[in-house]
């Protein structure tokens, strides 16, 4: 057991019980704290205990010397020959972390066009690019990419590995961390460094964004994190990159492609996909029917955004599931989220409440969506949205003249 109650010190005040989210501790019949089977060892109770009656055992250090690992490495994600912007965002953040720690920044590039992609990566102030190039590495596959990444990491030993928290990144990172038997923190929105301990402080939302947790991986290397796209700032390219490109021989072969990729069916609803959109216009139950989404598409087109939907709208068959925002759909964090006829159930908020700006249009002034909205208009969306389209068109014409 890693959480210890020092009975002599316990006053039975119950602060630990109050702070526990999991009913993991109780005051027993003797009037002292007792750890229950629900305890997840998060350590919250240790922090609040005024009597010093709770103690968390230190994690056992692994045999491996963690100080052999140095530097920050970013996984370069690409699809259809195009590098995902999150990889550049991570190079920006990675540079900051590497500078703080006084170590180098590297990129890991696995693919079939690695050499040309490396030139693009080189523009983002990276010290070393490890390129693993082969025809069978053209498209991402869990098995081949994880094998190559494992080899690169075990050979070059970075202390930190950053990966975009995209569908690909999370498919990859979860498998890779299990292979390396190291710590992985999902979907981080903040990264910083504990300079004294040289640890990566990984902060992420949990419980649908209602609480934030900061996580460390003290005793194993590398410390791995997936990071939500569009959270870290896009860095400026450097003028005269000074970068070392190292070719890495692949350890996998064509026989390791365990997946046959048969077909790709692009999402045709709207021109911008939800995950990449800076602006999202979402419709809910208040849209009343599928035909009314056309005005949201028109507004999205005008603003260069994508169209989302609440669970209610998806379950009614008005919009495909791929567009659902919320707990059982996608989590989005655009610059602007416009919620039309969405009441703002907690499950919906879980998928969008970290958006930079939220506009709510709803006829019910008591709708919970207004509590998270930067701006709200209480009114009939069937009047507000067409008016919004009309005025934006008007402004655009003015600018064009």
């Amino acid at each position: 057991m890693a959480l210890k109650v020092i009975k002599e010190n316990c006053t039975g005040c119950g602060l630990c019980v109050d702070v526990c989210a999991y009913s993991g501790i109780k005051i027993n019949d003797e009037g002292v704290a007792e750890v229950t089977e629900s305890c997840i060892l998060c350590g919250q109770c240790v922090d609040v205990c005024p009597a010093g009656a709770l103690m968390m055992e230190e994690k056992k250090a692994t045999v491996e010397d963690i100080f052999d690992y140095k530097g920050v490495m970013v996984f370069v994600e690409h699809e259809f020959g195009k590098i995902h912007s999150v990889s550049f965002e991570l190079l920006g953040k990675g540079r900051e972390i590497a500078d703080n720690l006084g170590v180098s920044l590297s990129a890991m590039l696995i693919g079939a066009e690695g050499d040309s992609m490396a030139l693009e990566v080189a523009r983002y102030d990276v010290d070393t690019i490890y390129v693993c190039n082969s025809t069978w590495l053209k498209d991402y596959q869990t098995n081949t990419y994880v094998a190559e990444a494992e080899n690169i990491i075990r050979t070059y030993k970075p202390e930190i590995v950053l990966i975009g928290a995209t569908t690909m990144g999370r498919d990859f990172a979860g498998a890779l961390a299990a292979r390396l038997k190291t710590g992985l923190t999902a979907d981080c929105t903040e990264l910083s460094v504990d300079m004294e301990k040289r640890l990566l402080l990984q902060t992420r939302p949990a419980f649908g964004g209602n609480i934030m947790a900061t996580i460390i991986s003290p005793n194993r290397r590398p410390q791995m994190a997936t990071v939500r796209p569009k959270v870290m700032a896009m860095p400026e390219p450097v003028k005269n990159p000074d970068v070392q490109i190292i070719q890495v021989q692949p350890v996998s072969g064509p026989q390791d492609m365990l997946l046959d990729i048969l077909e790709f069916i692009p999402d045709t609803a709207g021109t911008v996909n939800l995950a990449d959109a800076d602006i999202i216009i979402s419709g809910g139950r208040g849209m009343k029917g599928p035909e009314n989404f056309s005005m949201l598409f028109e507004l999205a087109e005008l603003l260069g955004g994508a169209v989302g939907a609440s669970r209610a709208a998806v379950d009614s068959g008005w919009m495909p599931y791929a567009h659902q925002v919320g707990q059982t759909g996608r989590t989005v964090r655009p610059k602007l989220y416009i919620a039309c006829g969405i009441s703002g159930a907690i499950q919906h908020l879980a998928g969008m409440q970290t958006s930079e700006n939220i506009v709510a249009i709803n006829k019910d002034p008591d709708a919970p969506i207004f509590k998270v909205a930067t701006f709200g208009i209480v009114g009939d969306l069937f009047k507000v949205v067409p008016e919004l389209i009309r005025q934006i068109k008007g402004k655009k014409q003015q600018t064009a003249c």
Partner: protein
Amino acid sequence: MKIVVCIKQVPSTEARVQMDPIKGTLIREGVESVVNPFDEYAIEEGIRLKERYGGEVTVISMGPPQAREALKTALAMGADKAVLLSDRAFAGSDTLATAYTLSLGIKKLGDIDIVICGKQATDGDTAQVGPGLAQRLNLRQITYVSKIREINLKNRKITAERLIESGTQVVSTALPALITVVKDINQPRIPNIFSIKKATRAEIPVWGMQDLGGDPKDFGFDGSPTQVVRIFTPPPRQGGEIIQGEVPEAVAKLIEALTSRNIINL
């Protein structure tokens, strides 16, 4: 066909786990535990595969003793067997240790054809256990599955659609495989009273560390590289400004507010 479904019991979202911003304590109003929503789709898909191809569905969960209730829900829906992995030694497991523990439980079940997991759990939202488990079990993985097109038991192949950001990818791989599913895959059934009653009486075996074998240092707290050092409430959202006025006027004010802050550029 031998089908294994991994599920997790999570606090109901309705319970609104929040922090009291003044006291810094967690507010747990009416915390109720439910089957992780994505896992309901996993259970349903397991049952549908059994109905289509024959076989047996075993649900497995790692958690405290009360996670039995989640397994009973799965039995009521139509799963054949349930196993709970529960031991004080599992406490403090992160995704690495959880995947390890589940992998030992599944190995103990014998040969399997497919493992189905929900895309992610709604409490941790990591989506890491599925891929981690596939590695531990040396299974091929297909994540974010929105449809199983076909399972060919003779050729031992599965063809499935995966939902990725830009569209749908159709892939095929050999069995045994592990898939994680999204909501689009099906509509979970509501169990009837009779099956709920039957499930309530079901005996669910509990396997602890001794039953699973494995290395004690790979379980729970010791087997978990990650550690939560701080939990806090995100800063409350600013604003909440309701724009007043008739529709044309309110819309004009909104556009002005958005353009002047460079949120949109017209």
